[in-house]
């Protein structure tokens, strides 16, 4: 596929946004450029026919990470200024960046142009994997083990985020207290959007088995909706020590691991016999989505706040 002008424009814009985000002294400006960069990357993903990734990148890369960084910038505020930049260190960074960048460029252009990777193998086994969308097939069946570990990584990150709470704040609710004008635009927006968000999130998860979409993209949309309602002050996050919250967090990976271990009786780990593959994968996806959405919300909210003095 020959690169059209559009592709080149997108790439140039991407590099400019990255450069702007990386250089310069004002952090807020950098974060804004980062979010724009995130959206441009989603466009790039569309251009290379990776729709699932475009969804994920837009939702997680630009969306949640942007919110995280903005939130952090909000709370850090003055503490986040850099005194001065010693000349030598900048040079070293420049050399390292340029060097590794050049090496990777050299490697990329040296790759075999006709490398088709595992497309053929995946399509050949697609029928046996029980799902229509090849990406979901790889994600939940062929390389389901990676996805299982990855859902644990999310949990560990959450426990890590919670564990940096202050000593007094353990039983408290996570994140800072948000309050918005009662009946104001934010609150009405907060009431209006979740309905649409839920529908879209559920659809993405459901469509994931046959078309682009899936547990992570859907989960992120649902998480975004939840974050919005909390930002709008309509509902406050549950306390860290509430029991149902913990069981919900653990449910997704737990079910996935349980189903994987069931395979052991048949002599293999994480195996989905073709007959039962589709329902099993969809069930796992639904439970996983719930846990992932909850984990992502709590990750963005941050550690439990300090106990009121």
């Amino acid at each position, binding site marked *: 596929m020959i690169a059209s002008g559009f592709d080149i424009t997108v790439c140039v814009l991407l590099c400019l946004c990255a450069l702007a985000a990386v250089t310069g002294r004002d952090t807020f400006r950098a974060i804004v450029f980062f979010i724009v960069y995130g959206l441009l990357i989603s466009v790039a993903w569309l251009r290379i026919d990776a729709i699932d990734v475009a969804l994920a990148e837009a939702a997680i890369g630009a969306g949640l990470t942007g919110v995280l960084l903005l939130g952090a910038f909000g709370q850090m*505020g003055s503490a986040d200024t850099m005194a001065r930049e010693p000349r030598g260190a900048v040079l070293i960074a420049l050399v390292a960046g340029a060097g590794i960048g050049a090496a990777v460029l050299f490697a990329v252009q040296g790759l075999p142009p006709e490398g088709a990777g595992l497309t053929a193998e995946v399509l050949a086994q697609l029928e046996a994997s029980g799902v229509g969308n090849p990406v979901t097939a790889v994600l939940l069946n062929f390389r389901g083990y990676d996805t299982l570990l990855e859902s644990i990584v999310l949990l560990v990150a959450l426990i890590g985020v919670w564990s940096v709470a202050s000593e007094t704040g353990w039983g408290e609710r996570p994140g800072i207290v948000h309050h918005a004008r009662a009946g*104001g*635009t*934010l609150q009405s*927006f907060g009431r*209006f*959007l979740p309905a*649409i968000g839920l529908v879209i999130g559920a659809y993405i998860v459901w469509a994931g088995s046959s078309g682009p979409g899936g547990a992570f993209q859907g989960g992120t949309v649902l998480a975004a909706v939840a974050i919005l309602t909390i930002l709008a002050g309509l509902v406050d996050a549950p306390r860290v020590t509430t029991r149902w919250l913990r069981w919900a967090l653990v449910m997704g990976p737990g079910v996935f691991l349980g189903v994987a271990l069931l395979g052991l009786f048949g002599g293999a780990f994480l195996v989905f016999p073709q007959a039962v593959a589709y329902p099993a994968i969809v069930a796992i996806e639904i439970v996983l989505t719930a846990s992932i959405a909850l984990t992502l919300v709590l990750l963005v909210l941050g550690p439990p706040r300090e106990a009121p003095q």
Partner: protein
Amino acid sequence: MILDAITMVLTLGGLAFFAAGTLGLLRFPDTHSRLHALTKADNLGLGLIVLGLALQAGTPGNAIKLVLIWALAMIAAGTTAQLIARSALVSNLRKDDGDRTR
């Protein structure tokens, strides 16, 4: 064939509005006027582009989806414009009162 021509016209119109909006953003002195330019010009520009694309969309379903996207964009733009205006107003008042507390 005619449809393509109409789409061309509509998208060009949309582009013109976007250009105007961006120009407003750069030229206008304070936050409120910039907000004014952005919300007006960009939303209208998006509307025209969406209409132009809707003609190209094969099935009516896609056309409706495009309109829905436009509606969602409108609501989001409105809310954010309101919020930015309110926070700009509050910070200006504080600045005038002299107590620059965050």
